[in-house]
């Protein structure tokens, strides 16, 4: 019908030679019915109104597309500016970075000094503790509280000796 295909050959792929020829004839006769009974054609007014409607739709599409790309460009510009801001303004400049490093160094030094002072204090305390230990080892009472504790321990030992059932409660 439309010259795009050979119906006889196409039908022969599905039918035997005689059946295919018969079917081809019937299809052509059917097409002839359409040809001899043309559908009404559209009026010039209708054609014009459809063309106008299509043109209006085209205009609308173009406006939408322009608006879309305009918005997309605005969003891209905002993203770009934000990126630039983060890369430049939010990130410290080299001089600011130098100041930061210097101040960090000063902080570190003062902390080290503080730690040194704490260490020397602890060192002095440890030295005192060592001295005290030496004195204890030499049986030299160096404090009254130590003596009172020794006496309590003696009393306890005496009690244990006098009452052997003490441990039973």
């Amino acid at each position: 019908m439309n010259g795009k295909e050979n119906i006889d050959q196409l039908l022969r792929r599905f039918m035997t030679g005689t059946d295919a020829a018969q079917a081809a004839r019937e299809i052509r006769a059917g097409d002839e019915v359409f040809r001899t009974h043309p559908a009404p054609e559209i009026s010039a007014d209708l054609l014009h109104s459809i063309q106008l409607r299509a043109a209006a739709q085209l205009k609308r599409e173009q406006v939408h597309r322009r608006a879309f790309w305009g918005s997309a460009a605005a969003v891209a510009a905002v993203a770009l500016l934000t990126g630039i801001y983060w890369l430049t303004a939010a990130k410290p400049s080299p001089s600011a970075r130098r100041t930061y490093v210097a101040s960090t160094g000063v902080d570190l030094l003062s902390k080290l000094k503080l730690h040194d002072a704490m260490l020397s204090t602890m060192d002095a305390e440890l030295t005192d503790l060592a001295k005290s230990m030496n004195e204890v080892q030499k049986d030299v009472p160096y404090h009254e509280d130590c003596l009172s504790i020794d006496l309590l321990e003696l009393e306890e030992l005496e009690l244990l000796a006098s009452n052997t059932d003490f441990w039973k409660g």
Partner: protein
Amino acid sequence: MQPVNVYSQEKQPTDEQLELDRLILRCKKGDPQAFDELVKRYSNRCYAYFYRLTGRPDQSEELLSELFVRLVRKIRSYVDGSFEKWMFTIASNLFKDSLRKQYRQKRLLEEKAELLAQNEGSPRQCPELFDKLQLAMEKLDRETAEILNLRYYSQMSFKELAEARKEPIGTTLSKVHRGLKKLRMIMDEL
């Protein structure tokens, strides 16, 4: 049976095809004159397709107008292949959509039958009623009527038609053959 290449002509684009390609390219670029040409070129065929399916000039005009609005909206999505196949697939979907909305379709056909009985021999009042093919078409089932109209007015090949309908070519061939036979039988009876 040896396979035969029945579509050898498709490989060589004709002048008409090249002209159509250029027209579509212009449409894609948003040239309003190209759309005017496209409307002029296809409006009668598309109108006939809708008219044969609906049997109503007013509804066919509406569908035709809507079809071209959709074409303007979707033309950028057409990439390759048969333009007719692409366009008539949209037309077919449009018709099916309208059918879904048209819950009164059956009643309208009944009204038309009543009109036919009342207006014997007055073609000026309702010309579509006196188109024998149209009457026969209305006696066919919807699917058969659609496939016959789609094939004739879109001028698609059986291969393209089968692709558009997403069915094997043998099935399409058989449906068209049986449909045309039935149509002729109905017309003989009228």
